[in-house]
């Protein structure tokens, strides 16, 4: 069952790389975080870890509902450009994405040799880290860059959940607080974007 959610996580990230509309991108980000939250919940129930269950619920509420909602609201409020065309052409992205994945699978091999159980999840989370970097690189506008940043955070969370069976809860909560601060900063960036548009 864990593999199912991880597959959907990676799939939604890859589809997000090809989207050309901002709200669709937000939807994919929300789906991505939902899968992550469900994954954390399932692992938490499996290992009977209350901290991980709480983080899972918080992930679903904050990342998959609140953050996309507020980003959508901000982008409507500041009239952000909603048509986001990736700078990297699709033809090249089709070759680039499998190349990145194959590369990271071999890159992660020394790490996976050290860890005995579910070693392939580490490779997937590192590759999703690279894919979210690609998402940040391929867009010029602020809003998709923000989504790239957020999904990078998601893939780090995935690494934490699958590799270590859950970070200490206080660290997770700290990350959430960090994210909320980041949203405030993003708000400032959006205001600047609006000035540039005028």
């Amino acid at each position, binding site marked *: 069952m864990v*593999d199912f959610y991880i597959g959907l996580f*990676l799939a939604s990230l890859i589809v997000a790389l090809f989207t050309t509309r901002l709200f669709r991108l937000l939807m994919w980000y929300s789906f991505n975080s939902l899968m992550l939250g469900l994954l954390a919940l399932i692992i938490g129930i499996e290992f009977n870890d209350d901290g991980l269950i709480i983080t899972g619920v918080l992930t679903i509420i904050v990342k998959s509902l609140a953050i996309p909602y507020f980003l959508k609201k901000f982008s409507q409020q500041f009239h952000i450009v909603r048509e986001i065309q990736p700078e990297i052409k699709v033809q090249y*992205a089709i070759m680039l*994405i499998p190349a990145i994945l194959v590369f990271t699978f071999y890159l992660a091999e020394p790490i996976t040799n050290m860890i005995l159980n579910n070693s392939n999840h580490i*490779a997937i989370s590192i590759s999703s880290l690279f894919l979210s970097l690609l998402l940040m690189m391929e867009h010029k506008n602020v809003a998709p860059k923000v989504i790239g940043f957020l999904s990078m955070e998601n893939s780090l969370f995935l690494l934490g959940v699958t590799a270590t069976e859950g970070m200490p809860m206080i660290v997770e909560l700290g990350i959430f607080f960090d994210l909320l601060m980041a949203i405030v900063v993003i708000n400032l960036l959006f205001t600047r974007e609006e000035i540039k548009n005028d």
Partner: protein
Amino acid sequence: MILYLTTILLLLLIAPILLSFIKSLKMIWLFKRPSSIFQGYRNFSKLLTKETIISQESSSITRYAPFLVLSPLLITMFFLPPIVEGAYYVSFVDAFTITGLISLSTFFLMLLGLDSASAFGGMGSSREAFISALVEPAMVLTIFSVSMMAGNLGVGQAGVNLAEHFPKEHMASFIFAGISFFILLLAENGRIPIDNPETHLELTMVHEAMILDITGVYLAIIETASSVKFVIFSSLFVSLFMPWGLELYAPMAILVFIVKLFIVATVVALLEVNMAKLRLFKVPNLLGIAIVFAFLSLITFYVLGA
């Protein structure tokens, strides 16, 4: 053997109903008065009684192409995985054969479009060639990757193996293959993000443009071929990606299979209502996504084993 033949007959009977079901479901969701789900049969019987007119400019290809469009698809129906446990099936047919048979049918459809030398037919054929050239590699890769997961290259045997032992440990690559195959299902059957099956607007036609000049019995055959194609793709999707319920008592298993076919049709209708048709030059992007997912499912299977 009886179950095998019954299955094929049943699939043939259900083929027009599925397409009419999609159409009427779409009409309900668009707040229109829905057409009957037996509309496919009505159209068929009406077309049989109509006069068949063939363009003077066309050669003999127009006379035999409709049969050659339908027959590879009918042959493919015999190679599908079984829907009931213990039924007879053909185990050795692999991804290349099925893709080849389907593209043989597409080839004759394109010839039919070109033959009457109308501007629309040529345009439709060129578009169809463009789309099917992009579909084929992704389809071979997807079915190949699923067969690798099932542990047998034959599609029928792969369906049986998947039903007996669902690959829980390969769930990630299974999902990638599923997404890829669903995009291919939409592309090959000319559903909405790729092609609008209901339009006769010259800018957007692909499938309709090729069959504009055809009337009567030949049109009935072509329409049957397109519904059979949909049933082939959806039953492949069902038996490769939703392989459960085969071990039930035979009539029950058949019922479960039909319900699953209708679920696939419902999802297609839902997508059609909610999406706009893609511009033709954006279609390679969507099919590119399908190729990426097909490739991904292979490499996650081989490299990670996940």
